[in-house]
C-alpha cells in the first residue's frame, strides 16, 4: 500500500512537476511557429529525462548516496568543480526565470508590475522552505500541480487532427527557418532535461530513505510520471499549434501564451492558465533552490536535510535562502522573465555533458551499484543521451546567435 501511495505521488508530481516556466514557454514557441512538428523533440527530451532520473534514483537507492556526493568522491574535487559551477549557473538562471514566472502571473492578476512581486514571491518561497518538511513540499506542489491538466482539457476541446500529432512524434526536418527550428528544439530539450531535477530527485530518494527494495517504485514513478508529464507538455504544443500558429502569433513573452486557453475554455481559460503558471513555477522555484543547496552540501560534506531544522544545517539552509533571494534580483532590476527563460534553457542544454557523461562511469561501477549496474539497454540509452548532450553543447550557443530572438 505504501508503495502504491509512493507511485501515485510520483505520477501526480510528474503531471505538475514537468510543466514550469521553461517548458510552457518553449512548448508554446514550438507550437506557434512549427505546429505539431516539434512534438518529437518533446518526446525525446522526456524519454531522456526519464532515463537519467531512473539512473540517479537507482544510484541513490542502492548506494544510499546522492548524485553530487558520488560525483565528488568518484572523480575528485578538481573535476567536481566543473559540474558544480555549471549546475549552479544554469540553476540560478532557471530559478530567476521561475520567480519571474510566478511574478508575471501576479502581474496578470493584479495589474501591479511583476518587478514589485519578485521579492514577496521569493520571501514566501523561502518561508515555506524554512518551515516545511520535504514530504509536505513534495505533496503540496504535486496536488496543486494537478491544475496543469487544464492543458489536456484545452487540447482535447480544440479537436486537433490526432493522427497528425502522432505523426509529429517521429523526427522530421523543417520546411522553413532551419536555424529557428533547431534553436527551439535545443530550448525544448534544455527545458525538459533539467539537471536540477536529477540532483533534486536523487537527494529526495536519500531523504525518503530508499533502499534496493524501492527500485521498482523508482522505475514506475519515473516512467509513469514522465509519460504523464511529457504528454501534458505535448498538449501545450498542440494548444499553441491550434490557437497561435494560424494567426502567425510570435511568442516572445508570456502575454500571448496566457490567452491561449481562452479559445477552447472561454475566460476561465485565462484564470486557469494563470493558476497553472503560478503553481508550477512556484513549485519549481522551491525545487531549484533546494537542488542548489543539496548540490553544495553534498559536494562539500555539510550536514543537510530538508527534514532538519535550519539550526542543525546552517550552511545548507543559508544556501537556499541566498539563492532564492538573489534570484529575485534580476526580476526586480527589470529583466524580462521570458528572455531569461530562453537563455536559461539554452545554457542548460549546453551544460548537459558535464552532468550526463560522468554517469557512464558511475552507472557501471560495481563497487557502487553491485548487481544493479546498467544493463545493455540502459547503457545504450545513456550513450545516445551523451552523444546528444555533446551535440547540444556544441550547437547551443551558435543556434542562440542565429536562431534566437
Amino acid at each position: 500500500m505504501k508503495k502504491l501511495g509512493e507511485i501515485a505521488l510520483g505520477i501526480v508530481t510528474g503531471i505538475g512537476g514537468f510543466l514550469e516556466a521553461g517548458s510552457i514557454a518553449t512548448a508554446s514557441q514550438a507550437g506557434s511557429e512549427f505546429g505539431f512538428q516539434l512534438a518529437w523533440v518533446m518526446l525525446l527530451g522526456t524519454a531522456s529525462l526519464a532515463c537519467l532520473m531512473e539512473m540517479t534514483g537507482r544510484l541513490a537507492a542502492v548506494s544510499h548516496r546522492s548524485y553530487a556526493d558520488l560525483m565528488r568522491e568518484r572523480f575528485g574535487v578538481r573535476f567536481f568543480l566543473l559540474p558544480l559551477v555549471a549546475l549552479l549557473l544554469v540553476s540560478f538562471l532557471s530559478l530567476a526565470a521561475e520567480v519571474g514566472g510566478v511574478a508575471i502571473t501576479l502581474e496578470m492578476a493584479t495589474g501591479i508590475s511583476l518587478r514589485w512581486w519578485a521579492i514577496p514571491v521569493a520571501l514566501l518561497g523561502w518561508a515555506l522552505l524554512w518551515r516545511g518538511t520535504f514530504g509536505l513540499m513534495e505533496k503540496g506542489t504535486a496536488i496543486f500541480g494537478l491544475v496543469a491538466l487544464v492543458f489536456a482539457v484545452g487540447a482535447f476541446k480544440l479537436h486537433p487532427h490526432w493522427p497528425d500529432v502522432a505523426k509529429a512524434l517521429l523526427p522530421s526536418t523543417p520546411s522553413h527557418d532551419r536555424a529557428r527550428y533547431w534553436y527551439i528544439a535545443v530550448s525544448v530539450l534544455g527545458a525538459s532535461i533539467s539537471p536540477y531535477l536529477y540532483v533534486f530527485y536523487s537527494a529526495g530518494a536519500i531523504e525518503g530513505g530508499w533502499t534496493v527494495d524501492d527500485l521498482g517504485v523508482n522505475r514506475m514513478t519515473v516512467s509513469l510520471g514522465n509519460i504523464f508529464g511529457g504528454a501534458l507538455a505535448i498538449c501545450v504544443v498542440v494548444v499553441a499549434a491550434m490557437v497561435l500558429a494560424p494567426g502567425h502569433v510570435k511568442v516572445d513573452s508570456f502575454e500571448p501564451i496566457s490567452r491561449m486557453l481562452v479559445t477552447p475554455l472561454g475566460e476561465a481559460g485565462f484564470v486557469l492558465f494563470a493558476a497553472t503558471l503560478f503553481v508550477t513555477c512556484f513549485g519549481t522555484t522551491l525545487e531549484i533552490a533546494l537542488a542548489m543547496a543539496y548540490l553544495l552540501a553534498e559536494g562539500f560534506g555539510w550536514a543537510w536535510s530538508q527534514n532538519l531544522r535550519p539550526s542543525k544545517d546552517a550552511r545548507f539552509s543559508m544556501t537556499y535562502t541566498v539563492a532564492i533571494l538573489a534570484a529575485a534580483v534580476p526580476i526586480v532590476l527589470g529583466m524580462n522573465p521570458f528572455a531569461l527563460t530562453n537563455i536559461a534553457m539554452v545554457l542548460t542544454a549546453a551544460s548537459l555533458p558535464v552532468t550526463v557523461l560522468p554517469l557512464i562511469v558511475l552507472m557501471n561501477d560495481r563497487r557502487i551499484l553491485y548487481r544493479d549496474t546498467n544493463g545493455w539497454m540502459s547503457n545504450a540509452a545513456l550513450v545516445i543521451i551523451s552523444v546528444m548532450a555533446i551535440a547540444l553543447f556544441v550547437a547551443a550557443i551558435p543556434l542562440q546567435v542565429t536562431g534566437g530572438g
Partner: protein
Amino acid sequence: MLHLVHEVLDAQLLDRHDQKIGRIDDLVLELGDDGRPRVSAVLIGGSPRARRMGSWIAALARLFGLRETGVSRVPFAAVRRIGDDVALDVEQGDLSSERLERWLREHVVCRVPGSAGERK
C-alpha cells in the same frame, strides 16, 4: 588494502556523533623513522581543497581571503571507521573548518524565527 585516492580522499567525514563535518580535502603523509611513508593526518578546509583544484584556483582563493586558519588537521589516529564514510573521533564544535557553520548558526540562522525545535 586501502586505496588512498579512490576510497579515502574526498570521502564524507563524520564526527563522534555521526554528524557530517565536511570531506577529506587532503591527506598529509610523513616519513617514519624507518624511512617509510605513512598517512599522518587528514585536512579539512577551503584552502587545501582549493590547492587540489589547481594553482590558479588556489591563487584565487587566497585573493578572496581564504586563510589557513579555517583548516582542520585531524591526526589519522583519530579515524574510528572507514567505510562509505570516514568516521573520526572528534567533536564538530572543536573543528576550525566548521567555524562558518557555527557562525551562521549563531549569528544568522538562530535569529530567524522557526529555525530550531522540531519539524512539523
